[in-house]
């Protein structure tokens, strides 16, 4: 695990914030609330987490080639500057081992109506699709790992594609480092179905009361590959409708369609059929809670269209179905237990040796506990059991602990 200086810099920044003379008396106390300045017009929140887990030789928990979700140090600072009651500027800067410092979010939010029924956000914005990527990880995540839909690296890349179905099948079960003959020749990790580690850039509109709200966005990247700069002269349209018929239950549907394949691939093979460059996804999510229970889940049907090049050709879009269900029960004011089950299944392609799934099916069961030491300080421990229908390591049982502080 690489530990660069940047995380420490941000951790230092967070520590500095704890001692900053804001409106909240933080100089002598460990804050449980955001630090505010200028009568509440400038809010600063922060979080820091240290996660240590087992070695993961099967790369089940990696979010890119160098970073495992169960072996990292992360610190983040979130700032909201309210220029007026209707206009705010928000930014979130994160630093973590193996990644460095990332401006995770930076955007302007305009709420034109006093009723708050309409919001427009522009910049590097939260994803409209699904729910998990908008949970302010890690304090809203009852476990340590992420759902596979949002984390597991498949063998699909936006900047390099297989020329044949056999090229694709050779990469099955090794999404952490993928190499294809068309496009970028350097090996690089593949993408998850929906990225939660980075946000896309564009504009988003939200309309409606909390009981029934809709949101739509146009961004330069795609669900799997959010971007700051466009790499393919095509954007993504995503939409979501969420319904809360009663406080105890909510259901949402999401859809996204965007250009996924980079122009560099099209330039490498100008003979490729035009239009086979999209990612499409449809998702359903639900959440229910009562008493000490919280249950939620998502299901996503996704496909990546890549250009059919040489024989044996990849004729159909590369499809996947994935979903998770998780439950949390609070056993004591300081203690909860949680469990999550994950599955990812993939469609088939026909290679030289027959028909098989283009990527190895994968499943995960994660269960663990969280102990609140004090408000804003949480310890978690979990066990992640992973199974994969292919690849070098086909099953792996991992353990992880996480200390998390936020304000």
């Amino acid at each position: 695990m690489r530990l660069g200086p940047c995380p420490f810099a941000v951790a230092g920044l967070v520590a500095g914030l704890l001692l900053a003379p804001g409106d909240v008396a933080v100089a002598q106390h460990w804050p449980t609330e955001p630090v505010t300045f200028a009568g509440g017009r400038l809010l600063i929140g922060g979080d820091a987490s240290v996660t240590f887990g087992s070695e993961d030789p099967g790369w089940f928990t990696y979010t890119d080639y160098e970073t495992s979700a169960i072996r990292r140090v992360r610190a983040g600072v979130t700032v909201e500057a309210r220029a007026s009651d209707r206009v705010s500027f928000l930014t979130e800067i994160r630093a973590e081992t193996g990644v460095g410092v990332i401006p995770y979010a930076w955007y302007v939010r305009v709420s034109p109506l006093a009723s708050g029924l309409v919001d427009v956000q522009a910049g590097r914005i939260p994803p409209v699709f699904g729910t998990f990527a908008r949970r302010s990880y890690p304090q809203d995540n009852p476990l340590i790992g992420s759902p596979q839909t949002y984390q597991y690296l498949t063998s699909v890349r936006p900047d390099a594609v297989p020329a044949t179905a056999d090229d694709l099948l050779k990469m099955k079960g090794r999404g952490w480092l993928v190499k294809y003959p068309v496009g970028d020749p350097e090996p690089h990790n593949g993408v998850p179905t929906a990225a939660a580690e980075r946000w896309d850039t564009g504009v988003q509109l939200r309309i409606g009361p909390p009981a029934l709200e809709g949101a739509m966005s146009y961004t330069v990247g795609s669900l799997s590959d959010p971007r700051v700069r466009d790499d393919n002269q095509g954007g993504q349209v995503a939409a979501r409708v969420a319904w809360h018929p009663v406080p105890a239950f909510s259901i949402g549907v999401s859809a996204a369609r965007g250009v996924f394949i980079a122009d560099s691939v099209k330039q490498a093979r100008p003979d490729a059929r035009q239009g086979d460059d999209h990612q499409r996804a449809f998702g359903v999510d639900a959440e229910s809670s009562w008493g000490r229970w919280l249950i939620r889940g998502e299901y996503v049907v996704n496909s990546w269209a890549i250009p059919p090049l040489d024989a044996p050709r990849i004729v159909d879009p590369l499809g996947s179905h994935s979903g998770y269900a998780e439950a949390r029960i609070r056993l004591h004011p300081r203690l909860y237990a949680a469990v999550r089950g994950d599955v990812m299944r993939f469609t088939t392609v026909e290679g030289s040796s027959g028909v098989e799934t283009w990527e190895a099916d994968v499943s995960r069961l994660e269960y663990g506990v969280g102990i609140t030491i004090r408000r804003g300080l949480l310890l978690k421990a979990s066990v992640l059991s992973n199974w994969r229908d292919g690849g070098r390591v086909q099953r792996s049982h991992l353990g992880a602990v996480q200390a998390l502080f936020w304000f």
Partner: protein
Amino acid sequence: MQMDGTRFPGFLRPAAAAAIPAVAFWLACSPLSAGADGAIRGTVEIRRSQSATAARPASAGLGAGPRRPVEFRPAVVYLDKAPGGAFELPRPGRAAMDQRDQTFVPHVLAITVGTIVDFPNSDLTFHNVFSLSKTKAFDLGRYSRGKSKAVRFDRPGVVQVFCDIHSHMSAYVLVFAHSFFAVTDQAGAFAIAGVPPGSYTLAVWHEGEVRETRTVTIPDSGGTVEAAFVIR
């Protein structure tokens, strides 16, 4: 020293964990006076920022969310040691702390030991009231509008209350073992009646800390003693 979010005067620090000064009432009562009861009245001017508890910057939200009213955050004025002989507590009653517009109302509730506090939910969203305080740790779970759950506070101390769903919601319940306390009103005024003659330490608590203490004396003839505080 900070304990459950509250600072106590030095002589009370050994008093255990959860003790707010009222505990000392049971341990170190001053001699009982035979004169006429008096009263302590005054004001607490709060010059510190009174902005509402801020929600964490909602960078992951699709919108701004509902706007919340500015909370009134009063001070609590109380006798550090209760008068000797004042052993008779008023009969524990019932009090309520509402959850309205994603805010606990009132923000500060001062009660005597044994009081049952109802936590009704008046919002359209779920709430989950809980406390990790040593004085009273509890978790009421999630419940919806129109429902209410209750907690009996059977030990003196300070209990900081939160909502597990809305991180910006917080409140205090101060549980006293005597009845010589008052919560300031919107104008900052307070009044503690029925105080027997004697010298007392008057303490002002605000947002988790004792901000100031002062000695006041009720003469044998009774009467009203005035006290004015400024919290910066």
